Each structure stands twice: as structure tokens, then as C-alpha cells.
């Protein structure tokens, strides 16, 4: 079974600061995908990024970037130059067969103006 730990329950920053969210996971699968989803105050879950387990390149997409380290089973996510609209709960989730996502407990990000 997969397990996900998001050790930070809440992070508060001032607008324009960078925010890094930690995610550590456990899986027995040799190949898998890792996801980050965002849940804004409106409640709907929104896909952000996806990473496969066989490519450890760090990537940047707009203000989002992620750092995947297979050796430490970590998949950290950074928001650069945070904005108030980034305030949300962020979930890390590895996927297993059947596209079964195991979600972490989430990290609440509060961006203050």
C-alpha cells in the first residue's frame, strides 16, 4: 500500500514570497506517477502537475516548480512569487494501478497581501 506524508500542515507567507511544500511517499511500485492537486476555498480539487518516477529532472512550469528525488522518495513543490489566489490546500498523491491516488493529508497555504 502507498503512504504519503505531508509534514507541513499549514504555511503562512506574505505575497511574493516563495513557498515550498514537502512530500514524502512510500510505494512498492517500481514505476509510478506523482501528482500535486490544489483545493482552493471553493472546495473543488484541481490538477496542478504530474511527474513520472523514471525521470528525475526538476521542472518549472510558470510559477510552479518541482523537485523529485527518487532516492529519498520526495516530491517537493514550489510556488514562486506567491499570490493571494494561491491560498489553498495542496495535496501530494502518488498513483497506483487503476489510477488509484493516495492523497497526503494536505498542506494549507495562506498567502497574505
Amino acid at each position, binding site marked *: 500500500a502507498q503512504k504519503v506524508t505531508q509534514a507541513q500542515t499549514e504555511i503562512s507567507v506574505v505575497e511574493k514570497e516563495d513557498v515550498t511544500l514537502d512530500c514524502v511517499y512510500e510505494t512498492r511500485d517500481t514505476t*509510478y*506517477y506523482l*501528482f500535486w*492537486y490544489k*483545493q482552493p476555498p*471553493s*472546495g*473543488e*480539487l*484541481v*490538477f496542478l502537475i*504530474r511527474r*513520472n518516477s523514471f525521470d528525475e529532472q526538476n521542472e518549472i512550469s510558470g510559477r510552479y516548480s518541482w523537485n523529485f528525488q527518487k532516492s529519498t522518495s520526495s516530491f517537493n513543490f514550489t510556488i514562486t512569487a506567491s499570490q493571494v489566489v494561491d491560498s489553498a*490546500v495542496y*495535496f501530494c498523491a502518488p*498513483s*497506483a*494501478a*487503476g*489510477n*488509484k*491516488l*493516495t*492523497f497526503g*493529508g*494536505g498542506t494549507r497555504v495562506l498567502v497574505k497581501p
Partner: protein
Amino acid sequence: DTAVSQTPKYLVTQMGNDKSIKCEQNLGHDTMYWYKQDSKKFLKIMFSYNNKELIINETVPNRFSPKSPDKAHLNLHINSLELGDSAVYFCASSQGAGNNEKLFFGSGTQLSVL
């Protein structure tokens, strides 16, 4: 047009009642899911259907019965509701059941059992 729509948005009911939550997706996806989010925000998969066939069935009480009349619909029926069933239930869909597929979620149904 809402991609994944679920109704109702709020459901308040008494213990012991039977209720249903409906979900429809207009994305042409093959795979649909039900997730439960508790009051501490923990999200857990309940069921998954691919082309109307059940492919994931987590350890969910058999009071919960999903039904997929066609690929675009996955409804959730709950019998004999209990206090512990109070949660937000999310429907989702994906193109297929591969583990690289991103999920599109509905806006959730907040179920309160009194």
C-alpha cells in the same frame, strides 16, 4: 459547461435514511471515481469504474453502492446512513485508468447526517 457535475451540492439527512448522489461528466472519459474527504481533509478513494466496470473497490461498507448506467454517469447510493458518513464526497473522471491520468473533480457533495 461544467465538466464533472454532481448533485446535490449539499445533503442534510437523518440517520438511517437512504440517499443518492449523482455524478455526470461530459468529457468523454472512460473512467470515473468516488472519493471521500473527511473533516480533517483526508481524501480517500472509494470506488473506480472503467467503461462501466468496477475496477477499484476499497474497504467501503456495503451500505455504499455505486452504479454506472453508462460511461458518463457514476451515481453513489448510501443505505442506512450513519453519523460517520458525514463528509464531502467527490466524483472525478479521467480519460482512462492508467496511473498517469490526471483527474477532473466535481465540486463535491457535502453530506451531513444528523
